[in-house]
């Protein structure tokens, strides 16, 4: 088949037209594809930019969370979040404080199990109140028990927070163990200071009363002893007078107790080993308390102490009587002595001076006492005994005596568990103990001249009468100045001076010094029942010739005078 030229040209033109149209369509679709591609790329680029920004924000958030987590995890303050009484978050500080792993805490069926049983109820109450929004202390302390049952104190501060849509409590824990312990020590020290101040005040008060009583009883006893001396024992009043003298001596013991507590009574200390004294006193005690079995556990190599045996005897007897009262149906009394370094002493109760101590322990199997009672047992006039049976001065006296020996006293007791008193005396190891000497009690007539000095006219009068009765020519002086004046005039006539220590104006110590300046060999017998200045022991230690404690009887005066005069 052949095409005509015109038909061929027409077909060619048609093909060319179709080709051009196809080219145009291709260009058209190419442009569309280009535009679509560009649009797609630009949208993707924009989108990827947004995603990159989002990722950047996420990354910064993760870093921020990381920093926050790092802070929380490394905080030395414990953080714990509880929801519905379940621990949902805890940081390392809490876990360390409670000696548990975080996983252990989170999985614990009893999330409050770490709280001390006695504190659990109040902590739970605070927790529940805080959840309800009720008033509750923002911060409070309670005890916790670690995994190893170690007791610790924590201070917790709680706040209500939202935890993943749930009401929760965020608790901040601070280990307050050291602080609480410091506070307890501080409180104890403050209590000790208050007690010491109270004891000092009571001591001054008791000492003042005792001094006044003592002077009055000294006069009464002096008169009575003189009357008795001149009365025939067959006289119908002799028995009454003797009983009256006995009562006065009983009263004297009472004031002695008070003075012992007040620590104003002068001590005549000397090196002694407590074992012998303890044995003697316990034997005496056992004889009158058959239902109490005394056990001695005395250290054979016990150190020597500087002590006034009569005062220690007094203290021991008071403790024994106390033990006896605690064991109305009998029991065991364990007496122990041992050498103890200061480091082994209960430092929480007192701070002993460094050195070695002798410990004397008096332990009974009696009824014991409560902490409240223990807190007051050394208070004067405090007694748990029924009315009329106790003066409340026994243990106060013991306290004063031990303190007067620079010692310490401790007590341990629980109701039904008996009571143990521990007495600590500073040990000396270089002085040999001195054996006690028998004191002469018979009245012996003497001759000579005596200066008697006392500001209390009753005491001065009775002392002068007793001395006269002993055979002395008596020169009374009612004050220190008067005594110096008389001594100056009659210095070489006087065989003896009986000098009261506590006087207004020129005191006994100053008088003593003047006398010794005027006549160093003058014999001076110090007489006192009370030393408010606390310096009498110092005077006695200055090689004083002798001491006579008021009140004293004619026989006691006679014995002491004889002792002095025999010294030559």
């Amino acid at each position, binding site marked *: 088949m052949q095409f005509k030229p015109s038909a061929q040209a027409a077909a060619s033109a048609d093909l060319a037209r179709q080709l051009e149209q196809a080219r145009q369509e291709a260009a058209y679709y*190419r442009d569309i*594809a*280009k535009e*679509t*591609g*560009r649009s*797609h*790329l*630009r949208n*993707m*680029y924009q*989108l*990827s*930019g947004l*995603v*990159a920004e*989002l*990722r950047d924000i996420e990354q910064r958030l993760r870093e921020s969370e990381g920093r926050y987590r790092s802070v929380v995890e490394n905080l030395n303050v414990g953080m714990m979040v509880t929801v519905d009484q379940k621990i949902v978050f805890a940081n390392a500080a809490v876990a360390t404080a409670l000696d548990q792993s975080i996983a252990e805490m989170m999985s614990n069926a009893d999330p409050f199990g770490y709280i001390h049983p006695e504190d659990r109820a109040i902590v739970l109450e605070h927790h529940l109140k805080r959840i309800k929004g009720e008033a509750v202390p923002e911060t409070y302390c309670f005890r916790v028990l670690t995994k190893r049952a170690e007791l610790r104190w924590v201070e917790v501060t709680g706040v209500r927070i939202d935890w993943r849509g749930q009401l929760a409590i965020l608790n901040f824990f601070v280990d307050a163990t050291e602080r609480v312990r410091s506070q307890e020590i501080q409180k104890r020290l403050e209590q000790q200071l208050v007690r010491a101040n109270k004891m000092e005040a009571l001591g001054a008060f008791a000492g003042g009363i005792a001094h006044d009583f003592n002077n009055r009883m000294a006069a009464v006893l002096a008169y009575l002893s003189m009357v008795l001396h001149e009365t025939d024992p067959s006289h119908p009043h002799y028995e009454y007078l003797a009983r009256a003298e006995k009562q006065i001596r009983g009263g004297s013991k009472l004031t002695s107790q008070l003075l012992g507590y007040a620590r104003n009574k002068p001590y005549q200390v000397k090196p002694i080993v407590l074992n012998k004294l303890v044995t003697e006193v316990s034997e005496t005690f056992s004889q009158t308390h058959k239902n109490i079995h005394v056990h001695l556990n005395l250290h054979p190599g016990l150190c020597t102490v500087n002590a006034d045996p009569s005062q220690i005897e007094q203290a021991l007897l008071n403790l024994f009587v106390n033990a006896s009262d605690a064991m109305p149906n009998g029991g065991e009394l364990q007496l122990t002595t041992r050498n103890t370094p200061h480091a082994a002493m209960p430092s929480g109760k007192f701070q002993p001076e460094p050195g070695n101590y002798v410990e004397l322990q008096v332990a009974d199997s009696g009824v014991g006492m409560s902490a409240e009672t223990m807190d007051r047992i050394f208070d004067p006039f405090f007694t748990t005994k029924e009315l009329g049976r106790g003066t409340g001065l026994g243990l106060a006296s013991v306290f004063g005596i031990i303190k007067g020996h620079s010692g310490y006293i401790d007590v341990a007791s629980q109701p039904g568990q008996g009571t143990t008193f521990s007495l600590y005396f500073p040990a000396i190891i270089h002085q040999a103990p001195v054996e006690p000497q028998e004191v002469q009690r018979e009245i012996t007539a003497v001759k000579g001249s005596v200066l008697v000095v006392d500001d209390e006219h009753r005491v001065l009068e009775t002392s002068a009468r007793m001395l006269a009765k002993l055979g002395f020519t008596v020169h009374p002086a009612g004050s220190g100045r008067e005594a110096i004046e008389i001594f100056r005039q009659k210095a070489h006539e006087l065989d003896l001076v009986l000098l009261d220590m506590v006087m207004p104006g020129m005191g006994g110590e100053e008088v003593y010094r003047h006398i010794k300046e005027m006549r160093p060999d003058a014999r001076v017998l110090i007489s006192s029942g009370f030393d408010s200045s606390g310096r009498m022991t110092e005077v006695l230690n200055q090689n004083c010739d002798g001491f006579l404690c008021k009140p004293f009887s004619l026989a006691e005066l006679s014995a002491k005078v004889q002792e002095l005069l025999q010294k030559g």
Partner: protein
Amino acid sequence: MKVGTGFSNQGDSRESGRLVAGQALLKGGIEEPSLMLAFCSGRTDAHAFFQGLRSVVGDAVPIIGGSAIGVITNSELSYSGHPCGAMVVQSDRPFLRIASCSDLPESEHQAGRLLAEKLNVQPDDQALLVFYDSIKQPPGDGRPLELNASAPLIAGIETGCANPLPVFGAGLIADYGFNPTIQFCGSHVGTRSAVGAVIGADITPCYRITHGCTPLDGIYHRVTRAEGAVIYELDGEPAVGMINRLYGSREWQKATPVDLLTIGIYQGEKYSGVKESSYVNRLITGVLPESKGICLFEPDIETGAEVQFMIRDSLKMIESARSNSADLMAEIESSGRQALFAIYIDCAGRTAAYSKTAGEEAAEIQKALNRAGCPLLGFYSGVEIAPFLNKSRGLDWTGLLLVMTGS
């Protein structure tokens, strides 16, 4: 066969090596290790890391691997900090033969050939695994990045093999700055090296290549001027200017590698349709100074070639990882073979940080392998090597999931 993996991300490189090796032995219940694969980031002191590995597995166990931008295991995935990972294999029978060569920069082809010759490939060998240094010359002082090309290396390997066999592997990069890399060459730490392993008859490698690129507009552009890995002109106009118009700005030039856009070479018949798996993609690693041209990861596009602009589609990328891994594991299961362990060689451009995706594509691989209970060690690489369209090729912006199976 027993296999275990370990991962660490800490600054103390020796301790990191000790940790990952220890974890791998523990997880695999391994008492006598036969082989270790190990990868560490560019911030890791590779020698110290290697010593750490040796302190656990001893001196006799061959260690192959090297630098990686990041590491992937069954439970870990990281490309920040100091990521390191290792896989330890215990086998009753030898299943790998290992060799290395260090003259890679002189000639990739010669290095490939020498490597293959050392490996002495046998007729029943199943495949060859190769890890090589991607960095011929780091960028700097106005000098562009120079890369060791995968194509001549593979060609060299094929030349050196008496019997043709599939090649799998990776071009290693240590960081996004394209700094020098190291290779674990069996007995020592090498540089500028290639290390290879021949997989013996007992092991059958199964694999999938994950993609995620689609044509931007379907338009073919002719390369009118190219030298090595640099394309200067497309359709007779500067390639950079053309891309500027596509983006609508010059901002894209700041990113290395370039965001979103790749260069695609369609391996099928022109205009026959769009099949994602028929494209070989090349990442644009950057722009030459003064915007003279664009640099590609491989120097295998010559003047006269027809290319297309491809767009990296993050959704497709994740979907590709998900479907390919699931399909592969299902195929292995249905074949009755046992998945012994898996290696995932993932292009560093596919990380979420560089693909600007919310999720990690490699997480899909982890899920599939974890479902199958198959130990996984993966790493982020520069180039992925795998048989593709009947030929072993170097690929870009792909993920190669290689699962070693046994009967």
